[in-house]
């Protein structure tokens, strides 16, 4: 391992170090009269864990839908790996290596754990043996190796969350976008998940964009945080900067300190 990677493991302040993987410029999305995302610009740097937070309805999941190509922006541009992806399909963008998870209905609920993961290997791996091997590897990583034959919907909630991450990882992302992966997890599960995210970043070399309501977790794990409110960027900076920002506190608590 080289020095930069050791750096990544220890404390770091990489806010603008790695090269830009994903760049959004003046992103906007309207649903009829409602503007879900407005004039939102940000950059995601290689190797970082970037948090995206904001109150309910702030536009976080919509932002995920935009950058992953599930819905087109009303205006603005997106580029990924120096390529303009503004009007590209979800299939195209995920093949490039930007993989997102879903806040709701994030699994193939009627299929087995093994099948859930194998589906995600299908595009990259062409032989059954290679897919099986990758599936086992991802199941092991996420603690699912003893549940391969279990139907996804009958897994305990915490493991369902892990399965959605295993699916995303099996698709071999360069950028992993996680939509509230910690919702409903117990204390020990949260800790295990955060360790997994660290491992994904440092050992697998995957850059992470994290939407999460669990503030303690976000503050602990993110290098930088973007705060959305009513679809607009309210603040951006390190966890300390953001947590002391008056506008952010007001948005969350509804009043000033």
């Amino acid at each position, binding site marked *: 391992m080289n020095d930069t990677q050791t750096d990544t493991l220890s404390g770091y302040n990489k806010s603008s170090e790695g090269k830009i993987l994903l760049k959004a410029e003046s992103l906007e999305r309207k649903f009829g009269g409602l503007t879900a995302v407005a004039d939102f610009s940000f950059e995601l740097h290689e190797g970082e864990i970037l948090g995206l937070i904001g109150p309910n309805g702030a536009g976080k999941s919509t932002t995920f839908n935009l950058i*992953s190509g*599930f819905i087109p922006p009303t205006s603005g541009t997106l580029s990924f790996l120096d390529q303009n992806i503004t009007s590209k399909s*979800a*299939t195209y963008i*995920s*093949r490039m290596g930007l*993989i*997102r*998870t*879903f806040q709701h*209905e*994030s*699994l*193939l*609920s*009627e*299929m087995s754990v093994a*099948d*859930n993961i*194998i*589906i*995600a290997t*299908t*595009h*990259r791996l062409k032989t*059954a043996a290679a*897919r099986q091997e990758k599936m086992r590897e991802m199941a092991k990583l996420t603690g699912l190796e003893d549940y391969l034959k279990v139907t996804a919907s009958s897994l305990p909630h915490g493991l369902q969350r892990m399965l959605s991450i295993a*699916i*995303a990882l*099996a*698709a071999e992302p360069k950028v992993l976008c996680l939509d509230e992966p910690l919702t409903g997890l117990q204390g020990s599960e949260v800790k295990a998940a955060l360790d997994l995210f660290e491992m994904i970043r440092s050992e697998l070399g995957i850059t992470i964009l994290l939407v999460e309501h669990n503030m303690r977790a976000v503050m602990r794990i993110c290098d930088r945080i973007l705060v959305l409110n009513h679809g607009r960027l309210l603040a951006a900076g390190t966890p300390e900067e953001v947590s002391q920002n008056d506008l952010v506190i007001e948005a969350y608590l509804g009043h000033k300190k």
Partner: protein
Amino acid sequence: MLKSNPGLALCILIAIGAICFALFSGDPYYVQVVIWVFANAALAVTLRFVLLIGELNIATAAFFGIGAYTTAVASTILGWPFFISLLAAPVIAGVISSLFGWITLRTKGPYFLLISFAFTEIVRLIYTKTEALGGNSGMIGMFPPMELDAYFPAIAISILAAILFGLYAAERSNLGRVFKAIKNNEDIPRSVGLNVIGLKILCLVIASTAVGLVGGVHAYTNSVIAPADFTYFVAVLALAYVKIGGEGHIVGPIIGATILTLAGQFLHSFGPYENIFYGAIIIGALLLVPGGIVGLGVRFKAGTLMGRAGR
């Protein structure tokens, strides 16, 4: 492979038995019934194949008809040889279905169902209005060559059985898994780099190619075809086979087609009331045995096992 799959081995034995029966039985009526059973099973299995991606494809009937008319045109108007005329059916059905799928599979559920229904009726109207295709009275004179005549029933059954085994293999492959994933939640395959629309079209094309070949076999089996043979009702019957037998496994529609085809031989005497019977069977099956006969078997097995372990 067969050792680990006794069910498949049994099915292969049944198919071989049916082919031998066609070769050596003296009674053409019973041989005809066996061909009908296989043809209806193939119709039901192709309908179910598109159900794998969650779509009820009434146009199964249309592509069945397109296959039959293709073979009829190739053999009677163009004078093509037997096997070429037969093979033209799946090719044309496949090509037209890829176009049909490309345009329509962006819709789903009730929308796709209605479009596939409309398509079926439009295609049928085209037959009735086209003089070259015999209009309302259809086409006549599709005969296998003299030297093959004695073997034709065995050939027909072999082809139909091959379709069943082929679709079974397709479902068991990774492609089948992907189709089921699309039905379950298509956002997931899309989010991991799969081209969901393209895969849906592929599923439809595979099924339509298969059912086109069934249509080709039908043209030679019947020697006469007419537009009225290819209404949406063909798909409704196929759906009845699927629902009676059970949708969960490919043998479901095969069992359903077998039972209803054999029962149909007695019901012909009811004349127009026959259809009421089929309607009643679909409703009854949906209400009383949602998983069909196959589902009943699975439940029975699970029930006895639970009985032993628990209460």
